C-alpha cells in the first residue's frame, strides 16, 4: 500500500518536473531574446519607428556620418511577402489534396499519398534550398529573365516546404468530421461535389484555417532554404523577379561576424524578437479559430 502511494507520488513528481522544465526553458528563452532585442531601443537609443519603418541598413556606418542605421522595413516586407505568396500557392493546393486523400481516394490516397507527403516533410530544408539554387534559379533566369534569385524562387521553394504541414493538418481535420454528416448530406440527395463543397469543407473550416496559419508560421520562420534562392538584396522587391531579403536571412547573414552587445548585434536580436512576436500572433490566431470552431 505504502509502495503504491510512493510510486504515485514519484510519478507525479516526475511529470511535474518535466512540465516545469519546459516552462522554464520557454520563459528563459523569451527573457533572453527580449532582453537582447529590446537593448537596441533602450541601450543603443534606436527608435522603434526607425527600426520598423526605415529601409536604410548601414549598421557599420560611424556616428559621425549619421549612422548606425538599422532600418528593417525591407526585411519585414520581404518576410511577409514571401510567406503570404507561399501560403497563397500552398493553401488551395494543400486543402484540395487533403480532400482527395480523405474523400475521393481513401484507399490508395492513404496508402501512397500520405506517406509521400510525410516524406516531403522529412526532407531537410538545406536540400530544398540546394534544389532551388541549382534548378529553380537557373530556370527562372533562362525563361523569365532577371538574375534568377528572386521573390518568385523564394516563395515557390517555401510553398513546397509548407505543403506537408497544410496537407496533414487539413487531412486530420476533415477526417475527424462525424461520418453521419456526410451520410445525411447524401440522403438529402446531394452529389459528392455538393457534399464536399457545402458540408465537409465548411464544417472543417477551423481545422483548415489552423493548417493554413501553421503553414504561414513555418514559412515565416524558415531561414536556410529561402536564403539560398532569394538573392539577399536589402531592398523591398519591386517585382516578382527582383531579389529580396527576409528577417531570418538578415539574421543568419550577420550573426557570426558581429560582436555581442554592439548596436548591430542587438538589431539582429530585435529581428529575432519580432519573429517571436509574429509566431505568438500566429498561435493566438489558431487558438481563437479553434475555440470559435468548437462552439459552432
Amino acid at each position, binding site marked *: 500500500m505504502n509502495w503504491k502511494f510512493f510510486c504515485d507520488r514519484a510519478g507525479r513528481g516526475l511529470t511535474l518536473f518535466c512540465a*516545469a522544465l519546459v516552462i522554464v526553458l520557454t520563459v528563459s528563452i523569451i527573457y533572453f531574446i527580449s532582453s537582447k532585442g529590446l537593448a537596441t531601443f533602450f541601450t543603443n537609443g534606436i527608435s522603434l519607428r526607425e527600426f520598423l519603418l526605415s529601409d536604410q541598413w548601414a549598421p557599420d556606418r560611424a556616428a559621425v556620418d549619421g549612422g548606425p542605421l538599422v532600418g528593417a522595413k525591407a526585411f519585414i516586407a520581404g518576410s511577409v511577402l514571401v510567406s503570404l505568396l507561399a501560403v497563397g500557392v500552398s493553401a488551395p493546393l494543400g486543402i484540395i489534396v487533403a480532400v482527395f486523400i480523405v474523400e475521393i481516394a481513401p484507399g490508395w490516397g492513404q496508402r501512397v499519398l500520405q506517406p509521400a507527403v510525410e516524406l516531403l516533410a522529412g526532407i531537410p530544408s538545406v536540400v530544398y534550398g540546394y534544389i532551388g539554387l541549382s534548378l529553380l534559379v537557373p530556370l527562372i*533566369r533562362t525563361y523569365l529573365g532577371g538574375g534568377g534569385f528572386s521573390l518568385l524562387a523564394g516563395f515557390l521553394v517555401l510553398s513546397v516546404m509548407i505543403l506537408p504541414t497544410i496537407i496533414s493538418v487539413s487531412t486530420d481535420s476533415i477526417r475527424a468530421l462525424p461520418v453521419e454528416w456526410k451520410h445525411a448530406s447524401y440522403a438529402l440527395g446531394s452529389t459528392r461535389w455538393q457534399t464536399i463543397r457545402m458540408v465537409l469543407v465548411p464544417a472543417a473550416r477551423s481545422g483548415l484555417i489552423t493548417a493554413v496559419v501553421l503553414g504561414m508560421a513555418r514559412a515565416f520562420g524558415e531561414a536556410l532554404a529561402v*536564403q539560398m534562392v532569394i538573392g539577399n*538584396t536589402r531592398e523591398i522587391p519591386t517585382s516578382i523577379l527582383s531579389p529580396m531579403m527576409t528577417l531570418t536571412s538578415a539574421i543568419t547573414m550577420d550573426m*557570426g561576424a558581429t*560582436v555581442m552587445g554592439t548596436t548591430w548585434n542587438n538589431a539582429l536580436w530585435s529581428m529575432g524578437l519580432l519573429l517571436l512576436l509574429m509566431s505568438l500572433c500566429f498561435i493566438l490566431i489558431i487558438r481563437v479559430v479553434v475555440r470559435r470552431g468548437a462552439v459552432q
Partner: protein
Amino acid sequence: MRSKIFLALFLIGALMMAVSGCGGKTEKQGEQPRAREQQSGGANGSITAVGSSALQPLVEEAASQFMAKNPGAQIVVQGGGSGTGLSQVSQGAADIGNSDVFAEEKLGAEEVAQLVDHKVCVVGMAAVVNPDITVDNVTQQQLIDIFTGKITNWKDLGGPDVKIQLVNRPKSSGTRATFKTYALKGAEEARGIEQDSSGTVRKIINETPGAIGYLALSYLDGSVKPLKLDGVEPTKENIIEGKYPVWAYEHMYTKGEPAGLAKDFLDYMLSDEVQKTLVPELGYIPVTEMKVERDVRGNVTKK
C-alpha cells in the same frame, strides 16, 4: 489544489536557480583552463580557438599537426565568424580569437587594449567576374564606379553588352571590409545580391551572366575570372612585393600575453613548419615572407 500550485512554483524557482547557477559557472570557465596551463606549462592542457571561418581550415590543420607531435595537448578549433571570435576572446570564453579584421574595427577601445594581436598569415583578394566577360583589367576608379552602381553595363568598359550584377558578401564579412577599404577606397557599395559564404559567391558568379564579386585568392579555381587592378595581377608575388593592394592579415588574438599551450601553439603557427608548407598549401600567403607591413590605419611601410 493550492499545494500543487506551490509545488509547481517551488520547482520552477529551483530550476531557475539551477539555470542561473550554470550561467555563473560558464563565465568563470574561461579562466580555469588558463590557470591549468600555467601550472603544467609546456604543451599540455587544453585550449580553444574560435572565430573566422576564412582562417579556420589553416588553424584546424595546424592544430591537428601540433597535437600529433604533442599528445598531451588538446586544441579545439571552432568557426562562428570573426565577431564571435573577438567577443569570445575578449570575454575570456575562448583562449584564442581568430579574426579577418583588426580588433579595432569591431571592438571598443577598452576591450582592444586587453588583446594581443598575432598576425599569422595574409589573404589576398581579387575582384572576380563571370568567365564570359571579356574585360580583364579595370582601373581602381572603374572598379569603384562598378560597385557604387555608376557603371551598370559591361559595354561601358569595352566588354559585351551585359548588365552588371553585383554579388556582395554581408557587411559584417571580413572579405567585404577588406575589399571596401583597399579596392574601393571606402566607397559605399550599391545594393546587390548578398551571400554569406565565399563558396556560394563563386558558384553564383560562375553561373550568372555579367556577375562581379570578390573572393579570397584561395577560392580561385578557374571557374571565375580574376580581374587585374590598374594592370597588376592579383598574385601572391605582387602582394608580397606590395604592388597589389587588396589583402588583409589573418589575426589570432589572445587576451593578454599568451602563456603555456596558447603560446606554444602560436609559436608553432609562425614556425617554418607551418609558414613554409601549410600556409601556401591552403592558399594563404606566409606573413613571414611579406616585404611590406600594414598598420591598423592602412599605412603600408617597407619591412
